[in-house]
């Protein structure tokens, strides 16, 4: 009899834990999907920076190509 009671307690605990975690997942999912998706920023060719520069990395490549 005592064993039966223990088993029931354990089951109710597991059930409560399951419901709780499912709820947490739902909250997180809502928060994620609720965010606005960032639109791609299109920059015109004239405005765009980040063109070629002879950095140390590039100079090192030129040096190895001279071998």
């Amino acid at each position, binding site marked *: 009899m005592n064993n039966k009671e223990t088993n029931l307690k354990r089951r109710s605990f597991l059930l409560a834990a399951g419901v709780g975690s499912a709820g947490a997942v739902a909250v997180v999912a809502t928060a994620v999907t609720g965010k606005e998706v960032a639109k*791609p920023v299109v920059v015109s060719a004239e405005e765009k920076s980040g063109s070629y520069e002879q950095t140390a990395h590039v100079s090192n490549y030129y040096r190895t190509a001279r071998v």
Partner: protein
Amino acid sequence: MARMKFLSDAERCIECNGCVTACKNEHELPWGVNRRRVVTINDGVPGEKSISVSCMHCSDAPCMAVCPTNCFYKTEDGVVLHNKDACIGCGYCLFACPFGAPQFPSGPAAFGARGKMDKCTFCSGGPEENNSKEEFEKYGRNRISEGKLPACAEMCATKALLAGDAPVISDIFRDRALRRGKAGDAAWGWTTAYGKPEQAQERTQERAREQNREGQK
């Protein structure tokens, strides 16, 4: 202002396809899209020559001339790029390109059903913000903005594929040609590809003497 160019040294290319693999890996390209490939002439015959081919970023690019939506543009470094949002996948650029550079992810299909054209960007991305997720998904990695050169050329084991500022890489190639000396049918093999260091020094000294003489005149 720099002028970006590729230069493939046929004497050094060993057809390893390292450049092809580096490109595919760097930009995470889908199956069927090869922005770069190695072409071998007289395959299997002694003296065969291989060169690595992709978009050559032409100074007067025929793809730009034929595009009906005008989606191509040229950067200040002379790199020919295109805007995938404007591309309708008509395939005119493929017919115009002498190097077969434009690639279509959906393969050969009916007019307009090939998907957006894809090609070598000289690792310069596209019109989107530098190193953004959108830019990577559409055009691949933007190594130029990171202060690097295209992955294919940097990966090349024999430095057969040269990439960079045109005056610099043409100077490198000129030095190699001088080191090799006379060309011809017999000019093939290790010494031709890499030359002898003594020969290179002699050539360099000779050139310096010539320049001095010209300067004195």
